[in-house]
Every structure is written in C-alpha cells, then in structure tokens.
C-alpha cells in the first residue's frame, strides 16, 4: 500500500484499505472510535502515522473471527445489548478484547479505568461492562485462554497491512 508521509493510520485504514469499521470521531485522540490493535496493542489511529504501521500487524474488529462468524466478545456485546447506534462498538470490542488479555479477571472499576479514554455517546457503558465481566467469567472456566486468531491469508477485508 502506498501513501504519502502525512497520511494518518486512520485514513490509511478507511480510505486505502477501505475497512470502514474503524471510525473517525474527534480526530484528536479523545473519543477512541479510531482504536485499532497495532501489533496487538490498542492505539488511537488518528494519532498514528500510516507509515508507522509499515511491516506491522494491524487488527480491526473484522479480524477477531473468521468471515461470517463473531468472536465470543462480539457475541456477548450483542447478547447484553451493549450498543445502540453501533458507531463505537468496533472500537470498544477491540479494546475489550485486548484488555481481557492483560487483565483476565478485572473488577468493574478496573474496566471503567481502562475505558476512560473511550466515549460512547449512546451511553451503553453498563451493558459493555456486563459483557466484559461475563467474558471474564467464561475465560475463568476454560482451561486455557483462547489464543488470538490467526491472520486471514486472503486479501484485506479483515486486516489492513501496509508494506
């Protein structure tokens, strides 16, 4: 993928890779809707240059499960009603997915702290927290924590990669 130096990662993903689940909200890193996982860690892509993702792994919400399926965290968001307009949902799902990897047994307070830079204007925080706590409970019951899913080999609806 080719782009000018001054292209934001957000624009690279939305315009060049045409992955539209990543949203542009505030353009200044306050709302969190542009969150993607860069090498597995969440970043706000409106404050990352596209060129910084060169040769690195970028995961968006479509990449959490094979085509046509939903990852468990996504299913739980649906079950708990953790969305109204759905605009912020892909970013919150990615953030939740990452958070449970570093803190598989969180308290509600820890979840709220981790999501403190992330805004949902419809206000479905309560349901999101329920979904996350439910997922944490399920993870405890499994013998091992499910590994991140392998990257798709087919071209790029799920993951944006810039070379």
């Amino acid at each position, binding site marked *: 993928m080719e782009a000018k*130096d001054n292209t934001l990662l957000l624009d690279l993903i939305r315009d060049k890779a045409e992955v539209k689940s990543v949203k542009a909200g505030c353009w200044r890193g306050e709302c969190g809707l542009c969150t993607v996982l860069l090498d597995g860690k969440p970043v*706000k892509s409106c*404050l990352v240059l596209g060129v910084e993702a060169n040769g690195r792994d970028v995961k968006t919400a479509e990449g959490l499960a094979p085509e046509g399926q939903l990852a468990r965290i996504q299913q739980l968001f649906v079950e708990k009603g953790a969305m109204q307009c759905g605009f912020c949902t892909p970013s919150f799902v990615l953030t939740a997915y990452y958070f449970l990897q570093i803190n598989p047994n969180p308290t509600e307070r820890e979840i709220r702290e981790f999501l403190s830079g992330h805004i949902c204007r419809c206000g479905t925080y309560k349901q999101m927290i329920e979904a996350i706590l439910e997922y944490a409970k399920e993870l405890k019951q499994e013998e091992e924590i499910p590994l991140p899913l392998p990257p798709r080999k087919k071209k790029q609806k799920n993951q944006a990669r810039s070379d």
Partner: protein
Amino acid sequence: MSFGSPYLTLPDFQYLRPTSLQDALQLLDEHKDDAKIMAGGVGLLAFMKERLVSPSYVVDIKGISELGKIQDDGAKGAVIGAAASLSQLLDWPPLKERYKALHDCVWELSDPVLRNRSTLLGDLCEALPFVDSPTPLMIFDAEVEAASVKGRRQIPVSDFIKGLAETALEPNEMAVAVHLKPPPENSNSLFLKHTSNSEFSIVNAAALCANPSRPEARVVRFAYGALAATPTLVREVEGIFQSKGSISQLMDEAVAAIKRSAEPMTDVLAKAEYRAHMLEILAVRALTKLLKE
C-alpha cells in the same frame, strides 16, 4: 490535546526515522526549526492538524533504543528517556516508591490507551500552561538533558519553560532525557490538580516533605503550575521550614510566600482571582497533608 480540530488532515511533511541519536541530531542541525521531534506524536500530530506547527520534517525517535530507557541514575536518582512511554513509566516500580508526586501526575496525564504512545518529555516540551509534568518534576530537582551536534547540557526544569509554547531548547537541540535527583530520605510527596469539567488544569501543585517533626532534618518543597505561562518552584518554602517555629506558624509563612510569588493569568479556563484563590487552597491542602498527617 487541542481546543478544536478544524483540519482533519496533516500538512505535508517528510517522515524521517533515524536509528541512532547521532543521526537525529544531524537532522536537527540541518533543518533546525523546520524539523520537529516525534515520540508518541500525541501532542505533535494534534497541533499539526490545527496548523499550529507545520514542520517540513518529522523526526520519529522511537527507533533510537537508548532513548527508550528508564533506569536508576547516580545514587538512586532516575533518568527517563525521551521515547519512553507513560505506560513504561507507570510500570517502573521505583516511580511510585520514590517519586509519588510524579507518579500521581503521570497516572492522570493520559488515558490507558494513549499511555502506550504518550511520553513524559513530550508533555513537558509542549510548554503550555496546563501541562502538568513540570510541577512534580521541579520538586525533585529535575533537569532536562538536551543534546545537539555540539554536545550535551543540563537544563533545570524550573528554567526549561520560557513562555507560552517556548522551551529553553535551541533550534538544533532536542531533549533526550529528564534526570531526577534522589529524593530526600523518608520523604513523602504528592500532586494536586484542580480543574473544572475538563482535563486542563487551572492550578496544579506538587509538594515534598521529609522528616516533618525534626527541624534540623526537615525538607519541604513546593511547586505549582498552570497558574501562568511558566510553572514556579517556590524556593522560599524550603528555607522557611528549616527554621524554628511551630508547624502552623511555618505553614502560614509558607502559604504567604507562595501567594506572594503568584502572578496568575486570566484565560478561557479561569480568571486570575480564581486561580490565586485556588492556589492558596491547594497550598494549604498539600502542606497540611504532608506535615500534619
């Protein structure tokens, strides 16, 4: 952070990613003010979107490994590299043990996602009044290590911010690390931040205290920021608490000295009178907490 983003795109620039500090300093010497250093880019990219800065060259320092380190400095001070993220800093145990005021400040500086990108020196170099990091750094006698092709020098944080968005760095210099002195033995410190409805400080304060009940070994330091374009370390306070007298008396003297040193500004966040008032309240709170509890 920014007050509004009328532009959704960045101005044109060339992205450079040197792999050694020497290369970065060469680039700075070549381009001077036309090059800007990017660590996390959280401040830089936001300002560029508003066209407050439009450098022709952006020099990404994240590829320079020596700048990403946080470690003990001489006799258990600390040195924090320019490219070390706030997450790295918060994960460094000595921060909370030795430099609690700085820890409390950094904790609120960035949200848990931006923390992976934001850096302490990035905050400091913004040199805007509501930037919180200078205040706790000053009570630990911190110095910024500045480097250029000509060599290195140390700039005390209390002299680092010259005015609105102006640092003491020369156009071909960059800040490579901030050095904190070892805290006095048995010291406690804290950081207070007063805002109203936003993340921008109206007044902030940091205080340190060691051995409150022993005048001969007592060390008390106080600094504040966000009151005006430059933050202030109230040096008088340290001398006041080395003299004899009851704690209440000394505290009154110290608060008076702090008030005298203040030249509060009026801006969109708050009026000068309000800032002066809140400074007094924060001073009393900070000193009371450290000396009387």
